[in-house]
């Protein structure tokens, strides 16, 4: 028993309408495949854990309430302690230079004199 093709097409049309697909009996390449794909962006961008509010942010937010609100930041305290110890051992960062002259003094190595660079004349 054979079914006429027009009948099959009718069935396909109804099927497409029900499942909200595009009816495409000629099988043209309409690129609907691309439109059907889901957007992966949000899940891809959420891979790394985002930063949530830190104590530093809180402190910045409530700047005027220092007396009423007590906060602590272990990492910051550790850092300051480390700096203090380094300074005591004489390993701290050098002092900020205020003037151009002061900063010039230390900058770079002493350049060799021009005479030293020039090749010596050799006599045969």
């Amino acid at each position, binding site marked *: 028993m054979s079914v006429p093709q027009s009948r099959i097409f009718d069935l396909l049309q109804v099927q497409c309408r029900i499942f909200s697909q595009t009816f495409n009996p000629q099988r*043209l*390449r*309409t*690129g*609907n*495949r*691309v*439109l059907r*794909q889901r*957007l*992966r*962006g*949000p899940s*891809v*961008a959420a*891979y*790394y*854990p*985002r*930063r*949530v509010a830190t104590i530093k942010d809180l402190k910045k937010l409530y700047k005027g309430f220092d007396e009423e609100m007590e906060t602590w930041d272990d990492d910051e305290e550790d850092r300051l302690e480390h700096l203090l110890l380094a300074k005591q051992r004489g390993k701290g960062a050098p002092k900020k230079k205020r003037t151009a002259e002061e900063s010039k003094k230390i900058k770079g190595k002493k350049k060799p004199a021009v005479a030293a660079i020039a090749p010596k004349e050799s006599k045969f």
Partner: protein
Amino acid sequence: MSQFRAKKLDLSCFINVRVLRDHTKRKVFEQYETERQALRYIIRNTTLPGRARAQAQLQLSQMHCYTRSTQINNRCIEGGKSRGVFKDFRMARYPFRMNALEGNIPGVKKASW
């Protein structure tokens, strides 16, 4: 590229420049995904005029490389490593083992039989 990078750090995991770069790529990809898909649709649609499709091809190929999904690479959130990273745990094999043995990862148990 630095033009896409966030002005303020917005990550709380291990950070090095490679992790930062990958994170930036992810965000740029998210931003431009719809545009890329629209261009891809135009390119794939054979019922549209050839000129429009060729233009779309050109436009797609001229988009910044950070908007491509192939630029993205899963990295370890514990150490930034790119190799041997478990997709489900977002961790490289060694940090994963350490965390699993400590019991920090729910549902993971050392097998023994």
